[in-house]
């Protein structure tokens, strides 16, 4: 049997300051995995909530995002940035400013 590790997240670590498109791609991959649909079918301009994930899966997704980006959110970012596009743009902007503690209510 395999020894579990953070590599079990199936994704390489994030680049130092990922671009909006890199973050978008990561989110699309995650959603596509969780739903079993091809990445091409994931809409990036529609609210993430309503894509069939339950509330527990969302909490886990936010945690994995923090782990991947090496940052922390002071609040749930999906409240203020509900779509993949808006969330990716916001996060890329925050990370480019060197922030590691991200407050989604202070955009």
């Amino acid at each position, binding site marked *: 049997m395999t020894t579990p590790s953070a590599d079990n997240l199936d994704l390489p670590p994030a680049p130092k300051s990922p671009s909006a498109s890199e973050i978008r791609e990561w989110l699309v991959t995650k959603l596509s995995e969780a739903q079993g649909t091809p990445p091409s*079918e994931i809409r990036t301009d529609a609210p993430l909530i309503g894509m069939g*994930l339950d509330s527990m899966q969302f909490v886990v997704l936010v945690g994995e995002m923090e*782990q991947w980006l090496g940052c922390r959110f002071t609040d749930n970012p999906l409240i203020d940035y509900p779509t993949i596009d808006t969330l990716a743009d916001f996060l890329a902007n925050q990370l480019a400013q060197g922030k590691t503690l991200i407050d989604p209510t202070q955009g």
Partner: protein
Amino acid sequence: MAEPSMAAERSMAEILRRRAAASPDKLAFQFLLSDGAEGPRCTYVELDRQARSIATALRRITSPGERALLLYAPGLDFIPAFFGCSYAGVIAVPAYPPRPEQPWHGVEGLTRLTLDCRAGVVLTGGDYAADIERLCRPVAPLDGVPWLDTSDLTSAARGGWSREAEDPAAISHLQYTSGSTGNPKGVVVSHGNLMHNEYMIALCSGHFETAAAGICGVGWLPFQHDLGLVAGMLQAVYVGGPLVLMSPVTMLQRPYVWLEAISRYRGYTSGGPNFAYDQCVRRLSLEERASLDLSCWKVAGLGAEPVRVATMDDFAEAFEVSGFRREAFYPSYGLAEGTLMVAGGDRETQPPVVAVSTAALERNEVTVVSDTAADARLARTLVGCGYAWLDQQVLIVDPTARTPLPPARIGEIWVSGPSIARGYWNRPSDTQETFQARLNGVGEVPFLRTGDLGFFHEGELFITGRLKDVLIVRGQNHYPHDIELTVQGLDPALRSDAGAAFQTEGDAGERLVIVQEVLRPGKTFDADALARRVRQAVAEQHGIEVHDVVFVRHTTLPKTTSGKIQRHACKAAYEAGRLIPYVPKEPPRL
């Protein structure tokens, strides 16, 4: 040393009063923030003072026996509110507030729950009190119901004590269970029920000894859940040992914070369902695991759903490097109708595991297969969850004849004793049926029908499934789990724990239906061909004809919050024609 006796007090409220008087400045609860840093804390005297202020305020606007809805975000604010209700003789009803990112999620359930218990007051508090009140505006039955912000009470009243809190038969709280039909049922838990169950939990977990030594527990389960309330918050006050708490969101987002807290505070007891342990295995790096010292963790509780052997194996292997020992796993069996705990085993021993023959299971018999690594289709591996404690009785009963069954026979689990709750709130016929069952229909002792099936083997209780899920075909019992496993073994796109087998009424009697989620199908995925293989495999291995096979998209079948499939909800969705068959984007090339 003689076994510690049951507390002389008649309610948890009296216990808190004793602790506040005897050890006022002792730490009761320490909350951890989402990064694991120390947040709010409270001592027994502070808790008692807050509870009395709340009780005083409650008595101005309610009378004893009324129901108070407790709507709190994770944190310590819930705790004095729960005791404040008890002090005032008001029935506490813990419930989940609607979620900020999914405001509509939970509104319907909360509406039904409010209607069912006819709440006369709402208690809230903490940093999110205003948000919770706003999110509850769509809950129509709360219109006109007074709200009390319990973190806003200034006067530390000296009174606030009600005689109702001293009557062991009086109601402590309603524990709502969702129920498969979405109709919430409130389990009526008395003070006496709680005192008995808390004593049982303390005895089998060794908490009298650890509390006396100042050793803490670590908890993250919500207070709205019976495990978080009865085995977490109330158990800590019952034994007088400190409890380190965190939000369930913290644990889900950063499972490292949970285990790091156990390591840092030298936690003795902590636990959760399978998925909590699975998350830790999946998310913690070797470096993180190696940095922890979990050798202090002697009671790793596993409950709330059938315990998976793989969960124990994977976690024990991954966290051996942290000093975790497999014998710390403490599987137990319980349910809200039994206040919480029904059965638990010996501490610090390897949880008993048996592999039993699937074919024998179908005849309601238990045949232990020696090879535990046997073919999953021929044998099922089960984890024992202990035995009855104190003056409780756990029997295996033929659910039709209502007679006790001999060992090695499978039947419904019936329980009697002082921990069995009083019934379902305002549901006399459901209460009669579930809480007042009699052996042979005439026995003197009332039993709780758990609806769970199981057997005793070498003194240990093993759970095999839910009575209502069992499929009876030509007098033979079939466990849906076994049929689902057969289906899921046919193709990698058919994931485990993502399908349901159930019976539906047809013109010619009960017929077997299989619904199964499809995840990342290969290019050659052909639903018709796969359905034919499903029919063939189920016929060959179980001898049952499949009436219908429906493949649906991943994550579309109803599941519990812990990811367990809800067979009855799947059946309801199927019968209502609400399941949309999976269609691959491109048809397979022929």
